[in-house]
Structures are given as C-alpha cells and as structure tokens.
C-alpha cells in the first residue's frame, strides 16, 4: 500500500530518546528528497510523562501538521492507549512486542532481537524506514553519521540495530506503507524555526545576543552559541531577563547589532527595556517565542496569545514593528528584516513566533548567503558636522547615528526626555519636538509594511484569515476544499465547494503596524470571513478592527497548547455552520 503524504507519530516517555529517533527519521526523509513538517509535543519534565514527535512527509510541498496518524510508532504502551483513536483507516501501529496490542493494525516489533536495550530505538527506526520503503543504504549512512560523533563502536551498533530492524520489517509486507520515490533535487537544509531565526540573525550581522533560558526560545541562543566563535559573536546568559534586554541595548548603543530571545513571562520583564530602546532610539531585535499563558501556563506547548501584549508593551508612545513568520524560511528572512528595521528606524523591532514553529523541522532550500547584506550600525563620523546630535530632528524622524569611540565626537542619550544632543531636558517645547520626531518614524515603518499574502479568487465565498505559524493549516485547509479532497471531515467546506463555492486565504506575515489599504478590500469582497488564530479571543481580528473598523465576527481559536490543523479548522467551521460563533 502506498501513501503520500504519510503522517508518522512516535510516542513515548521523556528521556526515551524520541527526539533523537524523530530527528534522524526527519533527516533521512529530507535527504530522500521529501518535504516534512515536524510537530513536537512534549511535557515540562526531563524524564517520564508522555511526549510525541510527529513527522509528516511527502513528495509534494507540505505546509501544515495533519491529524489522522498513518503510522504510530509506540515506544511504550501508553502511546497506544492515548493515540489509537487518532489512527487513520488503514493506519498501522509499530509497537515493541512487550506492549503491542492484539490487532491486525498493530505490528509487534521484536526490538530485543534487533539490538541490546540502548540501541532499540534505532532498531525501531529501521522498521519505520522499511515500512516506508526508504532506501536502506542511504538511511543506514545517516544513522552511522549521526552516531559517528560518539565512539565508532556506538555508531556500528546503531547501524547494526537499524539494519536488523529494517531487514525484519521488509518481510512484514502487509504492513508496508511505502512512500513513492521523491523527485531528485539538490541538497536542502533541515531546520526548525528557531535555528532559522538564529541563522537569519547571524547573516544580518548580529554580533551580540543576551538571554535568560526560557522554553521555547532557548534553542535560539543555543544555536547561536554553537556558531559564536566561528561567526564572531558574543552570546551571554544574563542573570535575568531585565539584564538581558539592557545588556543588548548597551551592546547595540556601542555598535553591535543585537538580539534577545525569550517567551511571554520573560518578555514581561523586558517591557521597561522596550520603552528604553524606543526613547534612546537604540536598535534591538526582540524575539518572543509564544507559549500558553497566563503566567507559567503550559511551558512547553504552543499558542498565539501574546500578539496584543507585544503590540502595546512599554509605557509611553513609540514606533515598532512586529513580524510573525509562518514558515521556517520566513523565520530566516523576517529575522533579517527585523534587524534591518531596527537599524533603519533605531528602535525595538519584534519577531513573534511560537513553540510549534520553533520546534518544527522542515526541509529548506539553501539560502544564497552571497547576496545577503548586513546591517551597518552608525555612519562615518567625518560625514556628520559637529557637534554631533544623537537625536537630531529630521524630516522622517530618523537621526544620523554614530557609535561612541568611533571618533572624537560624543554620543549622548538619555531615558529622560532630551534635547537633540541627548542631554536631559524639562523644556516642554523640546519635549513635543522629540515626540513628533519619534512618531514621525511610524510613517516610514507603515510605508514598508510587508503586505498580507492573499490566495484564491477575487471574491471568495469563504476567506480564511491567519497570521504567523497558522499559515500552513489555513492554506492546506483552503486548497483541500477547493480541490475537493476534504474527505469525510470536509462536509462543512464541501458544501461550499458543492455549490461551486470558493475559499481564499489572507495571511499576515507582519502584524504590526496594520495598513488597511493592504487588506480591507479582500475582507469586504469575501462573502464570509473567518479569522483563525491560536488564541481564545481573536487578537489579530481585534487589531484588524482597531485599524480598519472591519469586524471579523467569526473566529476560530485554539488554546489547548497544540497547533492548529486543517482538520481542526474544518471541525470548527462545521460547528459554526454558516452562521458564525467561535470555535
């Protein structure tokens, strides 16, 4: 039996090595030329509990996680209990024989026969690869490579376990769920969202990152630490988030392009610093990787509920931009854009991602680094007449920037209101001049807003609106409906299609500021508009109404800690019927 795409979930306890197997399987698939979408769902603990690592793979382009599981790889019994109901018709369960269930759907793996305890996961991986019909040699090569860093014998034992599992599974032909061979293509990178953010930052010239560990943001600084010496940047673990943001501001003031990465609670502690960066007109890129709140919430899960918080964080009034990547590629490019905006408008700029995207591995075409420019903090002291005025009032509100120590000029700035030379003032007319100057930058930022991406015909019967990581789910939902491949769960949308209806999508890669001219027409022309967000209150819909007056009354929200899927959208649409009402 052939399957394309195929949805593989690996389940087990924390500490059982799920992530290792999952990542290795992902790499084998990417090298095999397939697209993948990884969804990691884990608990806030180091050992035990129940985690899953889901890899969706196919020959075509995949954009979203999907629900029915075609292949459930159970590293423990609990996985079967918990996820049996999610198995697709014709789906198979690959389970260790000690806890395998009695059913045709379940293939009991004699893991003990493949290898000793420590290498069992690799044996299971061999089974999965055989079931998928992946090329044995290249797969085995990846296994050897992956464990090669450790002692050679470890690599060999893993390879043997893999081959044993593979050989055994080849014989279980009735359980084969073969992926068609993928078209040959050049090597691609396998990256998750956070790795792409780190790489985007470095490519943009980031030289400094301060952080305080916080899931799901920590892998950004960790990735940077891995390449710090080679790329020449400093990554410092601060005593707290307040120190992190202030350190970055200090480094940036001194001329080092900087970034901080955190999650909601840590960002809350940086809010005063956001206002400081704005007042002192110091460039800083702030990455907020969302997780469910309030407070500590669900530390390892996903949500999109910090949008309005980030949009208005900081006392006083000042310009900002919020970029919300929807793909791993966007994580790279929008982080670069954030560095550019921060330097161009000299203030705090945001990248708003979430746990799902942060941990979601994808196959990515290599970036052409030769044509990527870096930000250039500060101009040439010679080109600026003395005395240097750090906060000089200009047409667009942007003052020529110099860094301290680059010449005989003095760079002065102040968190108090200041005169053009940066010194403290209580002169109320100077105050208004500086406010007007700072807010003048809003025009420039607004003029450069990345327009929302529209798909579908001009006046669709249904328009699905999304932002950030929900992009893929909405697009796949729409295309499925339009193509009629909805299957049984698609009734709601099929109705639309049945009477020749169409579905469009409107996705926002930039969520602040919002420029109505860029999207209002689409909203007004659509027969029905539904906003799909990973939160309970419909925050983008709120911002859209604030900016344009247009009220998206139908809102689909998810806030159980899991990413939105096309299936979730369709179920919500069904429950709403044509009439509306939240999911």
């Amino acid at each position: 039996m052939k399957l394309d795409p195929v949805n593989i979930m690996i389940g087990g306890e924390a500490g059982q090595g799920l992530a290792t197997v999952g990542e290795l399987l992902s790499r084998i698939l990417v090298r095999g030329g397939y697209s993948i979408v990884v969804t990691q769902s884990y608990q806030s603990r180091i050992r035990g509990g129940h985690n899953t690592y889901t890899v969706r793979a196919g020959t075509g382009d995949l954009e979203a996680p999907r629900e029915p599981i075609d292949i459930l790889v159970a590293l423990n019994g609990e996985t079967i209990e918990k996820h049996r109901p999610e198995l697709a018709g014709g789906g198979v369960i690959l389970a260790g024989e000690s806890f395998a269930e009695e059913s045709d759907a379940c293939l009991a793996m004699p893991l003990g026969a493949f290898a000793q305890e420590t290498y069992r996961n690799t044996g299971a991986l061999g089974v999965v690869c055989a079931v998928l019909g992946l090329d044995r040699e290249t797969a085995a090569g990846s296994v050897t490579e992956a464990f090669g860093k450790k002692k050679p014998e470890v690599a060999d034992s893993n390879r043997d376990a893999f081959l044993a599992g593979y050989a055994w599974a080849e014989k279980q032909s009735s359980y084969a769920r073969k992926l068609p061979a993928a078209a040959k293509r050049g090597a691609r990178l396998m990256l998750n969202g956070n790795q792409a953010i780190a790489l985007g930052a470095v490519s943009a010239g980031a030289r400094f990152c301060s952080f305080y560990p916080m899931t799901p943001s920590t892998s950004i600084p960790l990735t940077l630490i891995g390449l710090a010496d080679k790329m020449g940047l400093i990554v410092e673990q601060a005593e707290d988030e307040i120190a992190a943001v202030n350190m970055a501001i200090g480094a940036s003031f001194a001329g080092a392009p900087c970034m901080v990465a955190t999650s909601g609670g840590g960002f809350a502690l940086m809010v005063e610093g956001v206002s400081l960066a704005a007042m002192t007109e110091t460039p800083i890129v702030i990455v907020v990787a969302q997780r469910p709140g309030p407070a500590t919430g669900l530390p390892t899960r996903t949500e999109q509920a910090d949008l309005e918080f980030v949009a208005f964080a900081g006392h006083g009034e000042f310009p900002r931009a919020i970029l919300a990547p929807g793909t791993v590629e966007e994580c790279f490019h929008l982080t670069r854009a954030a560095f550019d905006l921060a330097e161009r408008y000299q203030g705090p700029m945001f990248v708003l991602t979430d746990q799902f995207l942060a941990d979601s591995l994808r196959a990515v075409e290599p970036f052409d680094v030769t044509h990527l420019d870096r930000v250039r903090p500060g101009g040439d002291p010679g080109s600026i007449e003395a005395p240097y005025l750090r906060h000089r009032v200009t047409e667009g509100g942007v003052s020529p920037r110099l860094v301290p120590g680059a010449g005989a000029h003095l760079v002065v700035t102040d968190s108090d209101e200041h005169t053009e030379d940066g010194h403290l003032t209580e002169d109320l007319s100077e105050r208004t001049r500086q406010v007007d100057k700072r807010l003048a930058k809003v025009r420039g930022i607004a003029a450069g807003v990345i327009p929302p991406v529209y798909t579908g015909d001009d006046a669709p019967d249904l328009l699905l609106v999304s932002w950030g990581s929900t992009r893929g789910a909405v697009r796949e939902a729409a295309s499925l409906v339009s193509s009629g491949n909805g299957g049984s769960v698609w009734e709601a949308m099929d109705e639309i299609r049945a009477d020749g209806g169409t579905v469009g999508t409107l996705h926002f890669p930039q969520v602040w500021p919002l420029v109505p001219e860029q999207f209002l027409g689409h909203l007004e022309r659509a027969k029905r508009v539904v906003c799909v967000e990973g939160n309970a209150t419909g925050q983008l819909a709120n911002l859209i109404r604030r900016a344009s007056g247009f009220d998206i009354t139908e809102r689909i929200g998810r806030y159980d800690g899991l990413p939105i899927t096309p299936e979730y959208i369709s179920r919500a649409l069904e429950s709403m019927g044509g009439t509306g009402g939240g999911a």
Partner: protein
Amino acid sequence: MVSIEDYGEFETAWCPGCGNFALLEGMKKGLVAAELEPHRVLFVSGIGQAAKAPHYLNANVFDGLHGRSLPVATGAKLANPELTVVVESGDGCCYGEGGNHFLAAIRRNIDVTMIVHDNQIYGLTKGQASPTSAEGHITKAQPHGAPLERFNPIAVAVAMHAGFVARSFTGMTDHLAEMIRLGIRHRGFALIDVLQPCVSYNRVNTFAWYKKRCYELPAGYDPRNHAAAMQAAYEWEERIPVGVIYQNDRPPFEDHFPVLGGGPLVGREVDRAALKDVLKKFV
C-alpha cells in the same frame, strides 16, 4: 595631554551644598589623572540625582533606566572593549533596584568602574530610605525608622571577591580622584562607594558626620589580604576606613571571549565563507 577643561563646566540641577559637586570635581580629576580623552570614555548611569552627573561633563553618555546601569555597561564593554566604561549612579539605583546586577557584575568581573554616590537615601524621590540607610533611620516613608538592616556593599563585594573594592568621601576630593584613577586602571570590576552628603534629605549622615569618621587606611594595610579586608568592611559606626579595601587579579570577563581577540565587535563584516560552512552542518 588631557586637561580638566576638556571635561567642561556645566550648570547642574543639584541643591546648593550637595556632595555631588565635589564628586563631579573628583571625577574629572580622576579622568584627567587617568589620561583619558572624553570621547574614549562611556558613562552609563541610571535615574536619580547622582545619575544626572554624567550630563555635567563631556563624555559619551548612556543615561538609562533606574537600577539598570550595570547590564547596559556590560553590553557596551563587550561590544567595544576599547571604551573605558564607567557606571555612575546612586545607592538606591545600584544596590536597591539594581541589586541583582550588582551581584552578577562582581561575579563576571567585567572591566567596568562603578562609582556609587552613596548618600544613604533616595534623593530624587524626596527622601525615602535607601538600602544603605541606617536601620532605624527615620524618613517620611519610614516614620518608625527603616526596618531593614543597612546594606553593606563593601562587605558583600569583598565577601564575593570583587576585583577592586574602594571607598571614598566627597570631603576628600583628591583621595576620591585617586580612587577613581586606580579603579579605572584596574582590569576587572571596580566598585568605588563614595560617601556623599545629601543636604536636603539626610540630616543624619551629614558632611560633619562622615568627616568625623572617615580615615585613610594605614600605609601597612594590604588590600590583598581578604580576611583583613573583611574586617575593614565592617568598620562603620565609630570610624569609617576609606581607600582601596580589597583587590585581586581575577581575569576580567572580556578575557573569556575568544572573539574579542579580534578587537571590538563593531563594524565587522559577516564572514560569508564561514556562514556557508555553518549552513552545511544543517544539510
């Protein structure tokens, strides 16, 4: 040759008779003695009366948030180690709101000189108790007297083996200038706690009160003797020692970063070849 004129003369927002004036003078003298031109120095301050000081001389200035000078200074120093970075703020700013950064700066031993205007009070906000206010010190906000034990910055810094720990008094401008010169010269974190009378809100720890108690550490005193330093750190009620109380040669924080071998992080090009290698690792 740098001269005191290079640092200029400016109008201040301080009260007549405030110890800050002498501190400002001592600061200029110290900078001149250290032979530093204004543009090579970056002052980082917080918010308070003390924190206004850097506005009253010529230098690069980042006057940031209340309590957050040290992280800003740390980031700036790491970005450009060629800058001489001086943190200047009040006791409330440095030891109150900024307490956690004080601990971290000592542990990092970042090459920053921290000059604390210690008037044992929150001046700008009109006289509430500060961390260094004496226990029992009566203020509008503490009518029964400050209930917390006085924070002893010297004792904590010495106990944590800070690189350089000194005390001075605005009544001894030359001594102050010398402490500042030594603190700046010291490679690593240097704390200089300066006793500074506040004529408007601290009627207890006055100029006379400090004058009566302050004495210079004797010639024989060895700032590298930790036990002795710990003792000196507790001298207060009767007599208050001024001078370099403790010093050691811990390597400064910057030395931990290989990348700084190449000098400041400022203005470097992205090494595209290296970046390509990095990307290969993800194939």
